[in-house]
């Protein structure tokens, strides 16, 4: 059954996507990702020598710093201001002091982001190094964590960090039994009973024949890297989310590929 959404989108329709990379001068890799009004900036510094306390030195270590949205002045202006201030401050390398005094919610997002990015990066390439990823929330209009994951992923690509595969994140809202809407706005997120953030590997154009890349009867990109749910939902509702989520991840992967190709054609032109 059709459900009416304020902005007139259909059930599985995503909000307009926009992604631009290499927007920061000092960072080794940076990207800004916006889904509708939700806009997140991500910057990558490193890999630098040395690992933090009680981290495994044989592997690269990923450190995530989550900077929540602060202040009310115009959003784009705040974003540039904050990130620039951040660059200067970052050079002074005080991040663990600020890291320590963040509130609780940021800590959970940081842990989820860190674990997700650790699973997609190839950690054994440069051991005993630390890669710092700074996520700056510019505006939050629902599906904040998935857009942060997408932004961080694109920033890693921009920084040339070796990765097994890209990660594509989507938020599925369970409105009533069996009815799933994708990429909700903040209002829809609060109104609905429960929602689930899902992260899938991006779909690959493989040279091999169609069926060969299947694991237990499912293509690789059906495997869930990260899944975080909020609110109560019947068990099978969760599985109902998986289907549209996977479909959306294919759409997102195509968007990424187009964005990347368009970037490579520019550099080849310039090169």
């Amino acid at each position, binding site marked *: 059954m059709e459900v009416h959404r304020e902005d007139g989108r259909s059930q599985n329709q995503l909000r307009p996507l926009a992604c631009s990379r290499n927007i920061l001068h000092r960072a080794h890799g940076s990207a800004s990702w916006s889904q509708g009004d939700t806009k997140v900036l991500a910057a990558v510094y490193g890999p630098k020598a040395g690992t933090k306390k009680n981290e495994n030195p044989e592997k690269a270590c990923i450190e995530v710093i989550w900077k929540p949205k602060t202040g009310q002045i115009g959003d784009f202006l705040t974003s540039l201001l904050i990130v620039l201030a951040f660059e200067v401050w970052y050079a002074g390398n005080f991040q663990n002091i600020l890291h320590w005094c963040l509130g*609780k919610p940021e800590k959970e997002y940081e842990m*989820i982001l860190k*674990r997700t990015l*650790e699973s997609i990066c190839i950690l054994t390439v440069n051991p005993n190094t630390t890669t710092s990823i700074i996520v700056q929330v510019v505006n939050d209009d629902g599906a904040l964590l998935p857009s942060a994951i997408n932004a961080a992923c694109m920033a890693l690509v921009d920084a040339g960090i070796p990765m097994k595969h890209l990660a594509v994140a989507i938020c599925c809202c369970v409105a009533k039994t069996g009815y799933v809407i994708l990429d909700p706005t903040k209002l829809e997120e609060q109104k609905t009973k429960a929602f689930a953030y899902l992260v899938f590997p991006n779909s690959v154009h493989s040279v091999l024949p169609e069926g060969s890349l299947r694991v237990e009867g*499912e293509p690789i990109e*059906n*495997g869930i890297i990260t*899944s*975080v749910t909020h609110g109560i939902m019947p068990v099978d509702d*969760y599985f109902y989310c998986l289907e549209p989520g996977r479909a959306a991840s294919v759409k997102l992967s195509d968007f990424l590929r187009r964005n990347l190709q368009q970037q490579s054609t520019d550099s080849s032109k310039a090169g």
Partner: protein
Amino acid sequence: MDGYNCVFNPLFRSKENRLTMGLPNASGDLSTEVEVDAFRRLFPLRFYEKHLLESIRPDARPLGRARETTIALGAVASANGSALAKIGSTTMLAAIKMEVMTPSLETPDEGCIAIDFHMPPICSPIVRPGRPAEAAPVVAKQLSDTILSSGMINLKELSLVSGKAAWMAYLDIYCLDADGALFDTALLSAVAAFSHLEIPVVSLNDDGKIVLSEEQGLSDREPVNKERRKINLSSIPFSLTCVLHKNYILADPTAEEESIMDTIVTVVLDSSSQLVSLHKPGGTVLAYTSAIQDCIALTRQRVKELQKILEEAISGMEVD
């Protein structure tokens, strides 16, 4: 001075089962015993994979079985409700203290719950007195999300005088011994503490403050909340953490297993088997639908076990 059987007795049984472990097929004499330890410390992953081939774990548990779980209610006398939960050797002490607050304008007849999770320096070598452990705030946030979103407690039951006074339940959970599956044990101890909670009978004294009524013999002033002594818990959430490794699923991992295999899935179901939360933060192994279904099946079975244990503890509580 005779030692008597105290509430914390379950705290100590773990020492025994630790000693029975050992490679099922290792020959008994001491030299291989030492080599086993060295091998375990040097190549932990290969050590574990040798066990997984025969679908058994170093502490002689089959893959799907959780460790021995005990609950002791009423561990702390100075709190209104308290419980000690122990899964394997991971031990959590939860205690609730009730204080009075003036409810906010938007929700005049609702009380409030403040949930905090502490990892004191005694629980593990990594924690130092100055710096709190990184995992503590993350587990605290997950706990408060799970308990509040599970609707186990109807906040309206915590109100005293609508708009003027309501209960603020401070739930503090202390990890006494960290050996893996911290979230499961913490949630279990929180749920047990709530089931043991006794709301004190209070009444309004003359200058508008809520005071314990039987204290100052104000029996003449009728208590504000005479009848509701116990909070009725509707859908109680129970959780199970599993570790995915290649195509094995290990239930209820110990700290060592968590450190070796990094893909952790935590499934929280409530007593009416609704999915409260499914939490898989990254990890090298991708979770396919079949793996998630297995995890949920294991969790359903675990929920039944935990419900039985909780009922025993509560019935035990009523008897003495």
